[in-house]
């Protein structure tokens, strides 16, 4: 197993608002290894983007890491000075964004924007940076890189721009690449190419990739491991096969049930009812229970702990315990399961 690149422990990210502090990320723990892609999945507003911004240190002015730590190659990076964080960005951790249309400066040439990180992080001369820039464009599969260097972003197609973005992100030789929905704004064929490119670069450069998406199809394509987030919390995490074959959390199952299946004519979409609660909303117990089809009394009262199901599969849901109980011990008369103390469960002590 490869060395751990990024470790996030008990991360809590808070925003100052007029209504008082609001937690956008609640006690999230995860890690990314070298050469591995971790997909963070969840619907809009579940805190996945804020998690990535916390890692790279680019939270909006009213946001702050209230608790927990972020470690990169074993060193804490969440409490570095602004200047050190700045130098770390691009050279250790890089990020690519959703909208290739807007993530490039419209008034500067591709070459200018590509040279910039090279000159910042490697102290290259303009000449050297140009040479290296052309190499990078070549590496991300852009034909005629010399010509592209002198072009403006509006002269390139969406897919080309995303490739340029990737080239810029790779310019500082980062160990970790954060991709925040990099294919959402692209059409499907281009999407597949960009995903292939990210996969290939990850293997070649031995990078860790933190891939943020809400598209389960994309997850299947790129992920090694998947982390599902809901309302600021991690609810399930595991290797991609585990998550797709044996999803435990009702929300994960819901996400998978929301993907259309063209091969199966009888397939019906099963959307998850309701909407994501607002961040200020106080919910007792499991934060998903108001939308959960399987919610029990316990879910409304107690927050489910994280259970280790083995194989690197973790889930926070009372249901898994009930299933384990019903498999092993049985249920009581009302049909609702109660957990006996000797139930065969490994409670995660993390």
């Amino acid at each position: 197993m490869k060395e751990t690149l990024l470790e996030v422990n008990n991360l809590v990210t808070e925003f100052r608002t007029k209504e008082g502090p609001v937690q956008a990320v609640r006690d999230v723990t995860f890690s990314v290894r070298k050469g591995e892609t971790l997909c963070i999945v969840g619907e809009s507003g579940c805190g996945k983007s804020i998690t990535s911004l916390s890692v790279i240190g680019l939270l909006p002015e009213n946001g702050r890491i209230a608790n927990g730590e972020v470690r990169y190659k074993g060193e804490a990076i969440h409490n570095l000075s602004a200047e050190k964080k700045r130098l770390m960005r691009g050279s250790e951790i890089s990020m690519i964004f959703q909208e290739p249309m807007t993530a490039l400066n419209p008034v500067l040439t591709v070459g200018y924007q590509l040279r910039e990180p090279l000159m910042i992080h490697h102290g290259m001369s303009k000449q050297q940076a140009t040479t290296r820039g052309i190499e990078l464009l070549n590496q991300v599969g852009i034909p005629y890189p010399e010509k592209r260097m002198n072009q403006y972003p509006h002269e390139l197609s969406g897919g080309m721009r995303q490739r340029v973005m990737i080239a810029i992100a790779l310019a500082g030789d980062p160990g970790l690449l954060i991709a925040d929905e990099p294919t959402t704004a692209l059409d499907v064929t281009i999407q597949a190419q960009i995903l292939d490119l990210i996969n290939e670069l990850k293997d070649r450069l031995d990078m860790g990739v933190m891939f943020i998406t809400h598209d389960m199809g994309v997850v299947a394509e790129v992920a090694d491991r998947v982390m599902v987030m809901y309302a600021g919390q991690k609810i399930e995490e595991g290797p991609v096969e585990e998550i797709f074959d044996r999803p435990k959390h009702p929300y994960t199952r819901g996400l998978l049930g929301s993907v259309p299946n063209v091969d199966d004519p009888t397939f019906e979409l099963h959307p998850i009812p309701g909407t994501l609660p607002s961040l200020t909303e106080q919910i007792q117990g499991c934060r998903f229970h108001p939308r959960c089809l399987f919610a029990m009394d316990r879910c409304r009262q107690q927050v489910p702990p994280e259970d280790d199901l083995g194989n690197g599969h973790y889930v926070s849901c009372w249901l898994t315990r009930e299933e384990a109980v019903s498999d092993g011990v049985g249920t009581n008369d009302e049909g609702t399961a109660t957990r006996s103390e000797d139930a065969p469960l490994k409670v995660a002590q993390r």
Partner: protein
Amino acid sequence: MSTTFSVETPQVRTKKKDRFVVSTMKRLLKNKLAVVGLIIIAIQVIMALTAPWITSYDPATQQLTKSELPVMSEGHILGTDNYGRDVWTRIVYGAQISLVVAITAVTLGLLGGVVLGMLAGYYKKWDAVIMRFVDLLFAFPGILLAMLIIAILGTSLINVAIAISIWSIPTCARIVRGSVLSIKEKEYIMAMKSMGASDLRIMVKHILPNALAPIIVFATMRMATAILSTAALSYLGLGAQPPTPEWGAMIAQGQDYMWTSPHLTVIPGIAIMLTVFAFNVVGDGLRDALDPNMDLN
């Protein structure tokens, strides 16, 4: 998918920056009024630069035997003033003064305004302080503020330039701040930050070029205001002192001879009016030309 392509470079190396300037100029030149303005400005600039060659007199030398000659007199196409000085010569040298004072004032004003506006827009914590200072400057009517500054610094053309530049700062700062506020939220600024770019680099190299259009328009319009204010302050005796051939000062001096020699006030008046008009229409034209979304039909 293969990610490397064989590279044959087609020799297309047009300067794209020039292309932007050219397309803006093309749009500007479609605007007839702006073209008229540009021609007037060009004539004025040529007049100012070639003053010693296109006039045969000195703007300050008096010829009392030839005082108050009317327009189209022999040797004095625009006549002479009450001291016998050639009006054409004085108008031409006046163009020099107006342009130099206005360019100095606008440059200084832009410098102050851009720096303040940029800081206020970019750093939230400085915003309130800087903008309250700007509001303070706004609270004075412009010409009063200029008079106040001249009262403190003393009467001279340099002080007029300084006064007008200070008067330009608040408007410019507001315009720049507004642009910065919207530009800094753009994704490419975030992308640049995620690249490890410093604040200074982001402000100067990424935000400023994107905020340039309103600044250019403001500068052009402000040239008109600056020329008018220079004339106004000189007319009031706060700017150019005799015998400096400043247009406003010429009007002030000519007004005593309104009945006998109206050309002494009318001609500098026309010069001021044409210049101000020219800069205003060019500013208008630039605003339309720099905004490609504008419908020119």
